[in-house]
């Protein structure tokens, strides 16, 4: 019973924060709303006894991504104190239609899928030892290949970002003066 109570409490919190993210007329406020959403989701993982996942959610999403986003927002001077205008009617209508379509797709696929109890349900959180072995073992049951592919993808993204940033700096020598 309390499990359900906490589930709905956190779900309500996450939904309201998500609503705040999209409706806030200011980028910084949206970012703070996103922080609340991510905290709520970390709490949800904790409720499901996925401690490692929850910790990683906090470290990566809150400590990394939200901080970076907030930093980027603060660096773009025009955005910081600006309040966005309401978009025109036709755009609101289109956005509403698109959201409705996406929601019905999600709801349809979720309702049509038959959820069953997992075959090997574990109520205890995996230790980092098990997770590390599984991530790096090349044998069956290991995820070495996906892990390496993702690492490669991330490195490509990093190099790409650096290249884009460098090209910019080379073109305009007096760039700092303009910004």
């Amino acid at each position, binding site marked *: *019973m*309390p499990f359900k109570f906490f589930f709905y409490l956190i779900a309500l919190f996450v939904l309201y924060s998500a609503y705040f993210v999209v409706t806030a007329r*200011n980028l*910084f*406020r949206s970012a*703070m709303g996103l*922080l609340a959403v991510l905290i709520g989701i970390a709490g949800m993982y904790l409720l499901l006894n996925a*401690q*490692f996942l*929850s*910790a*990683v959610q*906090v*470290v990566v999403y*809150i*400590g990394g991504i*939200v*901080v*970076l986003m*907030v*930093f980027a927002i*603060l*660096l773009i001077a025009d955005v*910081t*104190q600006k309040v966005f205008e309401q978009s025109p009617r036709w755009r609101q209508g289109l956005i509403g239609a698109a959201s409705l379509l996406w929601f019905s797709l999600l709801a349809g696929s979720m309702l049509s899928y038959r959820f069953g109890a997992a075959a090997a349900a574990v109520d205890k*959180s995996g*230790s*980092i*030892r098990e997770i590390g072995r599984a991530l790096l073992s090349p044998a069956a049951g290991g995820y070495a290949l996906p892990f390496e592919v993702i690492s490669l993808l991330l490195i490509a993204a990093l190099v790409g970002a650096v290249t884009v940033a460098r090209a910019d700096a080379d073109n305009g020598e007096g760039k700092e003066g303009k910004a």
Partner: protein
Amino acid sequence: MVNYLYQTDQLIAAMNAWLHQHIGNIWVVEAIKIAAATATLAGLVSVMAMVLVWVERKVAAHFQQRLGPMRVGPHGIFQTVADSLKLMAKESITPRDADELIYTLAPLICFASAFVSVGFLPFAPGLQAVNVNVGLLFILGVSSMGVLGILAAGWSSNNKWSLLGAMRAGAQIISYELSAGLALLSVVVFMGTIDFQEIVKSQQAGWWIWRAHGVGVLAFVIYTIASTAECNRTPFDIVEAESELTAGFHTEYSSMKFAMFFLAEFLNVFIVCAISATVFFGGWMPFHIGGFEPLNRLFDLIPPWLWFFGKVTALIYLVMWFRWTFPRLRVDQLIRFEWKYLMPLSLLNLAAGAVVVTTGWYFFR
């Protein structure tokens, strides 16, 4: 009864059994446990912050051959009580063009992230509010949330100094977090666990700072530097460099909102020193020397939680010592020091740690 002073896990177990015996409903028992843990931690945190503020002022004074606060109580020990009363009585001001919601929320984010982190710390066997098997990772993540509070404070104050201070804080904390994490990671390689109780138990044979010889010492030095920077303390206090930024991100704050930033700052010092004491100096484990039975027996007479607080106190004194030893760094020096020297060094240290572990070339395998 005296036994409970030493075997705190048995004390917790006895309290647990008593609760279960007298209150039937398991959820009520859980609720009481959560409330008791929160109240204890809240008491501990507020008293500790007051003591730390007083100690900081005294240490600073004696380093400068002054007496420091002397008026309120013997040697001024009630000075911080008086200060807190004054802070509470002050008017809480919100600048006219500030974003009120974020402005109010910012100190809360800072304080909450520090307070939640304290819950993961192992004060003694069994004496830990939240026991998760990934405690170290959790504490790193939760305490890194504090920077968001600082950024939010700087932005919402609608003040250029606040914003500049917040930006500096952000750049500094994000950069130094990497070195702090890597330094801890190079010791985690030895321990093979990030569960705080397991971390302490893995040091039964000896503390990691010298069991892991060179790697351990280097990791401790790197972690101490990086964590001082993360706490925005001198020599890394460009965040609130008075001569340039008035008071940095909390320029516009007053009354209890300011007090929360202040509290969070001192709590963070305690937290990083507690992590350092747990990972490098054996946490609540008493100091033992193999073969010196009488000395070991004597040290066993000191309860584990006293060992923990003793080690943390020593480390806090070290951090306070820095403040009156090193001059403040410039922004560019600070960032260069991290990215060009500290981070490569901690990466090398991690690699060295991995080699030492795989070859088994450390003490008491």
